[in-house]
């Protein structure tokens, strides 16, 4: 189960990870080996097996529609890399 260089780059772009050439090379080899190992899950006949996305059988967990106290601006921006008055600023989207 080898992964190509293009696939590594595609996945990295989807995940918004910049990679240099050396990293692409390194991850290509490592990910190929890991994918080879994990593709084992496809060996089993799972035709009539339902998926488990959650280990506990619980449902209907919710909160009532009653407002709590929001953060102060100082708390909201306490860790902000770039604050523009009362907005978070980022390079143009």
């Amino acid at each position: 189960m080898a992964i190509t260089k293009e696939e590594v780059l595609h996945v990295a772009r989807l995940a918004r990870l910049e990679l240099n050439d050396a990293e692409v090379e390194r991850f290509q080899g490592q990910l190929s080996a890991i994918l080879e190992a994990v593709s084992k899950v496809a060996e089993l006949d799972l035709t009539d097996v339902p998926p488990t996305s959650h280990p506990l059988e619980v449902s209907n967990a919710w909160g009532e529609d009653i407002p709590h106290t929001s953060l102060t601006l100082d708390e909201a921006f306490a860790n902000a890399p770039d604050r523009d008055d009362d907005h978070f600023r980022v390079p143009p989207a």
Partner: protein
Amino acid sequence: MSITWEPVIGLEIHVQLKTETKMFCRCRNGFGGDPNTQTCPVCLAFPGALPVPNRRAIEETIKLGLALECSIADRAVFHRKNYFYPDLPKAYQISQYDEPLCADGRLVVPTADGEVEIGIVRAHLEEDAAKNVHVAASGRIHGATATLVDFNRGGSPLVEIVTAPNIHSSDVAKRFLQLLRQTVVELGLSEAELDKGSMRFDVNVSVRPLGSDELRTRTELKNMNSFNFAAKGIEREIARQIKIYENGGTVDQETLHFDPTAEESAPMRSKEEAQDYRYFPEPDLVPVHPAPEVIEALRSQIGELPTARIRRIANTLSFYDADVLVTGGLDRLWAAVVDGGADPKEAANVLANSFVASGIDPDAVNPAELTKLVIARSEIPRGVFDEALAKVGEPGFSADPYTAQKAVSDASALEPIIAAIIEANPGQVEQYRGGKQGLLGFFVGQVMKETGGTADARVVSELVREQLGA
């Protein structure tokens, strides 16, 4: 022989619920707060913060589903839709995917030519994105030097309603949207204000030869916020696609941004890579199992829905009047006024024309006072009626001072005035007598002016005709 083309239209509508709090945190939901003052670790996606669904939002979505005759899922699941954007703090939107709360419903749209049933594929619950402000010297996105983010709206509850592609005219699409909006408003789910973005929709359009059941490539019109623009955009897109096919071309699947001032809809900037949202079940949440008794309780809260009321009122009035009254949210007031003794048609005319134009909130009106006004309408001067109607929504409004001002219809009072006006306008008199009958209005107008609008216009017009002879 030329082909007759049939449009195939599907709609995707987002409605913002007017709950007190957001979908997955208990920050206040709604407009008005200063930027970033309605935020918390959850809606700012601080590390470790977890979503907790809003029970009321879930119940209101079920209620809408019931109103749209959907089946309510025995088990509904939230999924994550993954993509990066500054207004999406977790870099995924919690939405619903293959197990939505409501599916497989319909909304019957009455039209002048009979009823059209529009299929509802699904209605599901999700969270809204925050608000980006693109800052730039030129004010245009492309020249932006920075993007500023306000997370107040981020995480507001949204219901997404998806129709089947079985709408075949822009008029039905528009009527569907109006009817859906009215339904949502009446259920108390949302203000559904198009100009504020609390109701927005995307339109998918394709065309096919009439009689075929194929589905051809569709284009998507995004960011619609007006029913008329939607209709106009659909018309334009239908014409464009027909022209392409008739010239032997093919339609590209693309997303178009509708600009009502432009001649055609511009394609939106294409994404740098094809979107792959990597949906998977949201592991921070557990499934929703709506209890049958909860569903029944919600069902019992639903009154007679707009479609049924249009159907019923159209037995008394024209379809057009019934449609305007119901989708304008005026039919309950109309019924009260008719119950008070007003003529149904007269009441409908007043409500569907002058009243709508005045922008008064129907709920603020005391029906008994409006009834008096409608009944007295033909007997009081036009100016007085208009003045009264403009105030009918004010607290403590009484119609009595206005209805007391009966119009002057006494011929002996009006005749001298008319005579004076005829004498003062010999040129117009000559023209009238020479066959320019339209000048009658001129003389009536002069009389009304002279009497300060208190004269009964019908009586004046009879007397003028009499005096001018011919």
